[in-house]
């Protein structure tokens, strides 16, 4: 339980920690939180985006569909996944797998760490906006529990498209915002070097977001990644258990109200 209790970190420090290369990797999360993760590829339209990894796994004995952003470990992986910025194919893969989960009545878990949707020519041509829009639209009525964990950066619509379900938790050192502090500073002061100042104004830290009811809770980060994984697993089990007690109508009405209040 270090971190939360000792000195209060500034927003800029949390931004740095959220982007750190030491951040827990998606591979580690997938193998340590879940058993028997099996990856499925492709959006069934035109491609497979390595920035999103998805598939089936057991969470204890519970079958779930897991979908995670992937920043990549090696340089090659990082380039292929645009440093974890999904293309439309990634969002469409996420939707396909989530709808499959709904068919077989298993919960969907999103693990989110992305600076945002990939801003590129191909992404525009293939309908980046439409892909995100469709996820928001369909997930609002997906008839199974959806839990998202933001474990690094939660960048704008690209993150929201994977964090628009029933419950959203954040790791202690993670961020969630409408745009990056650099982008914000560049627009506001025409000076991206004032990002630290921008980070404060943006109110992108878990603590601020919890107070504003944008998220349900904060998971403390300890020095041990195994302990972190345990904490994440506990949250997932507890949330899914609660959500599964509801009828589908109740679940969807609560989900609607979760966003209606903003």
């Amino acid at each position: 339980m270090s971190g939360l209790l000792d000195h209060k970190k500034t927003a800029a420090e949390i931004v740095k920690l959220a982007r750190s290369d030491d951040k827990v990797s998606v591979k580690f999360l997938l193998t340590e939180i879940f058993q028997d993760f099996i990856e499925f590829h492709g959006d069934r339209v035109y491609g497979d985006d390595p920035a999103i990894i998805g598939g089936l796994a057991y969470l204890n004995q519970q079958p779930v569909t897991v979908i995670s952003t992937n920043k990549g470990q090696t340089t090659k992986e990082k380039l292929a996944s645009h440093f974890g910025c999904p293309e439309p194919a990634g969002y469409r893969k996420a939707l396909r797998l989530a709808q499959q989960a709904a068919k077989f009545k298993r919960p969907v878990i999103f693990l989110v760490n992305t600076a945002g949707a990939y801003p590129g020519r191909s992404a525009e041509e293939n309908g980046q906006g439409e892909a995100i829009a469709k996820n928001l639209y369909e997930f609002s009525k997906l008839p199974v529990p959806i839990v998202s964990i933001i474990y690094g950066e939660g960048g704008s619509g690209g993150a929201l498209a994977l964090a628009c379900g029933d419950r959203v938790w954040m790791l202690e050192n993670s961020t969630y915002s409408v745009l990056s502090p650099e982008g914000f500073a560049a627009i506001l002061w025409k000076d991206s070097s004032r990002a630290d100042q921008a980070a404060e104004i943006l109110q992108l830290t878990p603590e601020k977001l919890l107070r504003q009811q944008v998220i349900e809770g904060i998971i403390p980060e300890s020095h041990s990644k195994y302990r972190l994984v345990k904490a994440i697993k506990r949250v997932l089990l507890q949330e899914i258990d609660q959500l599964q007690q509801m009828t589908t109508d109740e679940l969807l009405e609560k989900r609607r109200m979760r966003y209606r209040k903003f």
Partner: protein
Amino acid sequence: MQLFNELKNLSAKHIKVNKQASQKVPSGIWIACPKCHQSFYHKDLGQYKVCPNCQYGFRITARQRLNWLVDSFEEIDADLLTDDPLQFPDYQKKLIKSQQLTKLNDSVLTGFAQIQSEKFALGIMDPFFIMGSMGTITGEKLTRLFEKATQKQLPVVLFTASGGARMQEGIFSLMQMAKVSAAVKQHSDAGLLYVVILTDPTTGGVTASFAMQADITLAEPRSLIGFAGKRVIEQTTGQKIPSDLQDAETVLKHGFIDQIVLRSELKNKLKWLLEFHQRRDS
């Protein structure tokens, strides 16, 4: 022809500019189209404010559009005001300026309208209200519009124009994307029609939510439709992008727009579509 070419090749040094004369021409008499760069006399813009050369629809306020679009209109939620959730520096000043300019409380005008006998819920975003950005009130007004349309069993017609999320409202702006999307979905599940008309510019979080969720997606000629800004794309990828990448015509070619409609024909097109979707089950 030879003479013509020579004239074309005249450089600045060949021409003595009569500066006094050019000062006598009031600004705004000659207008250059931002898309095709053709200059024309300002009256040629006509009531629809359209480039006579390329048909590009100039940006207009929501109330200007309303003038020629419908036969009757009853505005709703005109008094909602943002409570400035981030207490953002100088935001209030910006809001007041935009409110005076557009005669709106926030970046979208909503209400119930009629074209001849066709009744529908209508939303028009205003590109002059902080770039048509989506704040909490924008989202609230749109959500209420879809909710009320669902109750009243009416179709929704929405004109989008937006620079995207409103950064002055931070994460609350982002949440509007999910909030409005849920209301659109509910409206759709009730079997009701949603027609969107993308106008210049429709970008960012608006493109990535309700602008791309309609049953029928129309666009005005040459309007800019995209997700990421051109500068962001070029800085991120290090590549120049073609100037027409985000033109409505290109977006149509890639499969995301049903039809491009001239501004002068919009009213008739909407009337036709609304009539066509008259519910026959009652």
